[in-house]
């Protein structure tokens, strides 16, 4: 989708839609939102809806950042301790690596 062909109003509603969708435990949607609308929010000459758009972009970026920190921490903890946790770790795994 080419953002340059959208009206500002449409952009805002699109950005808002992405932001809201992200609450359904979809951090990647927030990350996409933040990157995609970054130029619109910060590098375009000012327009009426920009203030709101900026807000959504920043919030999406923060949300995505928190998610990535939480996920990274969990993945590190899990990978380090998978072996020690024994049965519990196997039960919460979808794929158990062979030979370890």
């Amino acid at each position, binding site marked *: 989708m080419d953002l340059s*062909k959208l009206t500002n109003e449409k952009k805002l509603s699109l950005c808002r839609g992405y932001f809201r969708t992200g609450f359904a435990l979809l951090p990647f949607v927030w990350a996409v939102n933040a990157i995609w609308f970054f130029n619109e929010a910060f590098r375009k000459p000012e327009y009426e809806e920009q203030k709101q758009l900026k807000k959504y972009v920043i919030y999406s970026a923060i949300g995505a950042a928190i998610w990535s920190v939480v996920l990274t921490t969990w993945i590190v903890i899990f990978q380090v301790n998978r*072996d020690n946790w*024994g049965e519990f770790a*196997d*039960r919460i*795994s*979808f*794929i158990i690596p062979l*030979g*370890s």
Partner: protein
Amino acid sequence: MMIFAKNGLILLILKLVLNSCNGDRIKDRMYIDVKASTSCFRRFNATHQVGCSSQRGGANGVIHFCTKESDLHFILKNGTAGPYVPIVPASLLTEKSVKLLKLSPKVSGLVVYPNNETLNSFTHDLKCPNENFAVPNTCGKNEITWNPRGTGLLFQDIGFPVFFIDLYEDVTSVKECFQKFNNFSYDTQRDRALCSIQLNSFMYGAKNTPTCIRRSNIATNLNPMRVCDPLGSKNVWASLFPLATYNNETEEVKPILGQKYIVVASRSDAASLFDRTVGAESPITGLVTLLAVAKILKQLLPQNKNYTTNVLFILFNGESFDYLGSQRIVYDMERGNFPVETENGTSVFLPVIKAKDITLFIELSQLSRGDGHVFIHRYKLDRWNTRFTDLLKINSHSSLTLATSDGTLPPSSVHTFIRKYQNLSTLVLANHEREYSNRFYNSIFDNSTNINFRYFNRSDELVPIDSIQYHLVAIANTISKSIYQEVTGVRYEDGDVDLFELVNELLYCFLEDQNCKLHQVVGKIPQKQQDQPLNLYVGVDGNTNDAVTLIGFILGWLTGDIVGESNQNCTNISKNYAFRFYNMSVDMAHLNVTKCFRMVMNFTDAVSPAFIIEGYDWSSNLYSSWSESTWGDMNARLFLKPSAAQESMVMAVGSISIIFSFLIVYFIKSRSDILFCPTATQPSPVDC
């Protein structure tokens, strides 16, 4: 028209040319397979993993051909190219050198080849085999160490792949490759192409039996896969006299109750660090003696003349791995499930045999000739085994020296029984008193040479008195006559039964050529006919090896009765657990003359109770818990590894070209309006 014909001709020629090419891929052509190789693999018990595994895809290493220990030290110290795979003679596969290799970061695997000179010893079982499931204080104390040369490597987590190459040609090709590329100016090894080997034996399972059994059964796993299987096979039992009466007319079968039993037992499995076993001394000497005893007793006592004692032959399987076969039989006996599984402890076909019905338990352990000594190990003296020892001495063959050893108990199935029933009267016959005379216990070198076996063609050769055949026949006669006297109460006065032919043929069958007369006699030719020893490794549950079936049927044949002419009806006669009917040859000399045999022989599961008890507590350590990892490929292949400089060069050229390609694409795109003529673009039909 002309053009089409011309093109067609060209295509045809092209097709012919292409057809003559074969599709060898470059990635396959850069390797030379080392075919005659066998690998060490991974096993688990309740708490540990033992054995070897490579990483996924195989372990690569520069080969270093060693002939003596100093070669090994040399490469660990001076090698510049690493990682290495030392190629060592069997004599160097010791606890010490494996420890050294484990600690070295320069080693990624190990290859073992057979020694040129005679080996001193090669046994990787423990110094006290099966110690954790043995009667306490029977090993390691009072100067008794049964397997003093044992390295224990079979029960160590080695951590890198170990392969064994047994074909001389393969060893030579490895050596040639090493001489040509590696064996000069070690300082500059890094700078040139080197002969390397890839060892692939990646094991799927990890950690211990409870973990891998659990992982094999997890339902939420997206990629469900068996990562290990319990070790297991079949135990074999047969009785001298039928355990039931059979009415030929009504086909009615009734169990004979209230009998006492003399058990003659032996183990039927061997183990090895590698995926191949032989087991000449242990278990074949004992096993063949047992079969000979069965044959002699059948000849001396063809019918049950109201004797109160019967003889039960039992072959335990998986005994090398914490006595799993005998543990299962004891477990079954306790629950009234021996010799056949019952609902409430009684069977309509067979008497239920319990430990209290056994008056005497005789186990035949390693029995090769040595100096002619046979030791009678009596763990506890009692009325029964004292009397039987006297009988053995009375009936002893002149070539044997019988000696008693009281209070000692070598590794044997007896341990399992005594742990449960302290008062059982037992005897273990073996050629050793305090330590094995067998220097190759549970290894690939426990072969026919180890017991000095030579196959005789009797018609044209005289049998030397010091042959293994002669020795085993002498022991079998001694035991059989003693059992005869025990059962009948009368001494057997006639001479020895000449069983040379049978023992000769049995040993030949098990040790040298599977496609032998005895297998034809019982009509159980192995699926793969090979002129190599039977594989006696217990294997995994649900995949009974050929050896057990063959041995079982030979035992059944030796103790069976001919009930009629051979025909199709034979195998259709009443199918039940008490009797089995098969068409078999009458003897080895007349393979084509078959009769209908009635056998009182059957198989029982030899799988540790740990795997059948629901909710078994693995930490209880009550039963053997060995399982074997599964694996995909297992192979070794040679290749030429380029020098480090060349490897980096290829990497660099690749990286540079990919960066350039990105740059070029970027420039072309950004200057596309100059490079390509602008075309009139249609307005987009939609607004995005």
